[in-house]
């Protein structure tokens, strides 16, 4: 099985190359790159030309001279063919150099590093809370199958599942932040965050994160709850639980000691997939709550055509999801010795 996982890890390489080449090519082929953006800005600044005409006139009508333009192109590496500049970019990545943001001029890694704690905070909190609520709820629903508790919670969970997280965000913002004013409208911390005591800071962050966490959780919630419920019910129906019951074991003990342990397996396999959630989150939710996270950074840099940042996020994001997939398989193998991969 070790050989199988080594093979899986090696397969990351071609996939990773494929993803990055594709997106790299797309960013190169598309008009409106950083240079065009700068030209427009320069023109707007000089004001001697109506900006919307610049597109038709192209480079010829721009305010920059030919040599300046070439310098710019060279600076951003746009003067070389796609494959060559991809090679240079890849070499830098291997040396752990993500390049410089064309928007801020600071290293891409710096921008990403600033956002990481926020994204990790929301990722971890979402995962913890989801597990903490879904496992007990799933057990309850399995034991109380087809009762009112089960039916009503099913409907609620399904509604949460049906609507996208950001729409859930809009709902909770409208009700709890705008009308009831229980929670802040947006942001990660209050303006006076630095003046607060440690406990005050913790409270402040928690206070700000209640609504976004609801939005983050609403989707994953249904999947986990039903996974837990169905797998527990499958196990309850299995022969070994019937045997235990037949020997006179109490139902409660049978659930806790036998069925529950086995039904946790599918939940554990989900763990690896959640790693991507740490970072990816949802930029729509981040946009609505104005959280300065990883997703929002990706979205903004894409809108602003800040391709080094886009590529940097792609590198980290895709690596994490590829590794996360393998990790979740490893989790399965660890938790359940019956699973054999690579047969």
């Amino acid at each position, binding site marked *: 099985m070790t050989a199988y996982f080594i093979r899986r890890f090696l*397969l990351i390489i*071609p*996939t990773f190359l*494929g*993803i990055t080449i*594709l*997106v790299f090519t*797309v*960013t190169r082929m*598309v*008009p*409106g790159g950083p240079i065009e953006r700068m030209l427009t800005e320069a023109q707007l600044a000089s004001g001697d030309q109506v900006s919307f005409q610049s597109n038709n006139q192209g480079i010829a009508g721009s305010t920059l001279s030919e040599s300046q333009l070439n310098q710019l192109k060279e600076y951003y590496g746009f003067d070389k063919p796609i494959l060559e500049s991809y090679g240079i970019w890849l070499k830098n990545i291997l040396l752990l150099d993500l390049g410089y943001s064309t928007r801020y001029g600071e290293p891409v890694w710096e921008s990403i590093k600033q956002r990481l704690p926020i994204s990790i905070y929301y990722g971890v909190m979402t995962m913890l809370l989801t597990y903490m609520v879904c496992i007990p709820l799933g057990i309850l629903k399995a034991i109380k*199958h*087809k009762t009112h508790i089960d039916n009503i919670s099913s*409907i609620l969970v*399904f*509604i949460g*599942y*049906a*609507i*996208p997280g*950001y*729409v859930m965000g*809009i*709902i909770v*913002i*409208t009700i709890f932040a*705008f*009308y009831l004013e229980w929670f802040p409208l947006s942001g990660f911390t209050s303006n006076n965050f630095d003046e607060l005591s440690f406990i005050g800071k913790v409270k402040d962050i928690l206070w700000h994160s209640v609504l976004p966490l609801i939005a983050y959780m609403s989707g994953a919630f249904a999947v986990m709850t039903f996974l837990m419920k*169905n797998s527990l*019910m*499958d196990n*309850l*129906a299995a022969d070994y639980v*019937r045997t235990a*019951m037949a020997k006179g074991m109490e*139902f409660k003990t049978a659930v806790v000691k036998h069925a529950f342990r086995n039904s946790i397996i599918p939940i554990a396999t989900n763990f690896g997939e959640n790693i991507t959630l740490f970072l990816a989150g949802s*930029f*729509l939710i981040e946009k*609505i709550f104005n959280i300065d996270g990883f997703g929002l950074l*990706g979205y903004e840099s*894409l*809108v602003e055509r800040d391709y080094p940042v*886009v590529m940097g996020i*792609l590198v980290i*994001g*895709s690596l994490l*999801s*590829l590794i996360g997939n393998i990790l979740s398989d490893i989790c399965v193998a660890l938790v359940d010795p019956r699973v054999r991969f690579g047969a």
Partner: protein
Amino acid sequence: MALIQFSPLTLKTFKRFRSVKRGYWSAIIIISLILLSLVAEVFVNSRALMVSYEGEWYFPTYGAIIPGDVFGLDYQYETNYRDLKQKFNDEDSDNWVLLPPVPYNAFETDLTVGNYPPNAPSFETQHYLGTDTVGRDIVARLVYGFRIAIFFSLFLLICNYVVGTAIGCLMGYWGGAFDLLFQRLIEIWSNIPFLYVIMIIASIIVPNFWSLVIVMLMFSWMSMTWYMRTATYKEKEREYVMASRALGAGTARIIFHHIIPNTVSIIITFIPFSVAGGITALTSLDFLGFGLPPPTPSWGELLRQGIDNLQSPWIVSSIVMSMVLVLTMVTFIGEAIREAYDPKKHTIYE
């Protein structure tokens, strides 16, 4: 005499589907909504349903525009039927106008002097859910937005399933190098953040309905392909496939006559979830401004307006309620279909 003979198994599945009440009723409501949305012009429209003028009847809903001078007005462009109705009422003549329940279309702005949109819901102006920030009727935007979203989602679903089933079946049936090649391709393709690429594409070309379907198809064919591949792999190993091959059936016949009919439950089970996914995807794109160009009536655009104008609660509440209702009902249908195909009968301890 039924035209199509359903097998007893299909009938039993359908019976089980009907026994899941909330799914069954959701299906009836959603299907009626889709059918009604096809003739939405009858219910929500600025054109009158019927005009009786000087003893003659006119039906302006469908067909060419009727210029104002036909009804004795002093202009050549399309008649404003709301004004016409007002005029007939004032004149107290025998002429009359029958307007639809919501006498506005999705594009016109209803502006009155000294009154800035968005306007709150009002029965007097017949804006039952109010107007949006430029004065368009919200009911009209919702209804026509629904029609676009649901048909976008249905067309996307058909394309996805055709591509997914074709490639998936071949991957599972042929296996080998073809399977391996597409496996890698799917892995690469599904790791590309699709919203990124759509945003990039949308910034170059202004998408229309069909180009958006094609772009979305490029990034959503993978999941169906994957399910069909697994299903075909399983079916291929079974005796009936071997038997038909021994009888001389070719690849096409085995796939179309044997494997696909036996995997149809997978395809049907995923339909409601794909519909919900399609609506959500289009709404998100429109919300960000990368979807269908304005002034196309769109749920995403209304959602954007709603969150930007929280002080006008009728916008955000009507769009959110519509989304919650439609998506929840679609999900209920999905749950019922799954229950119908795979009834889970569990031992329960008393």
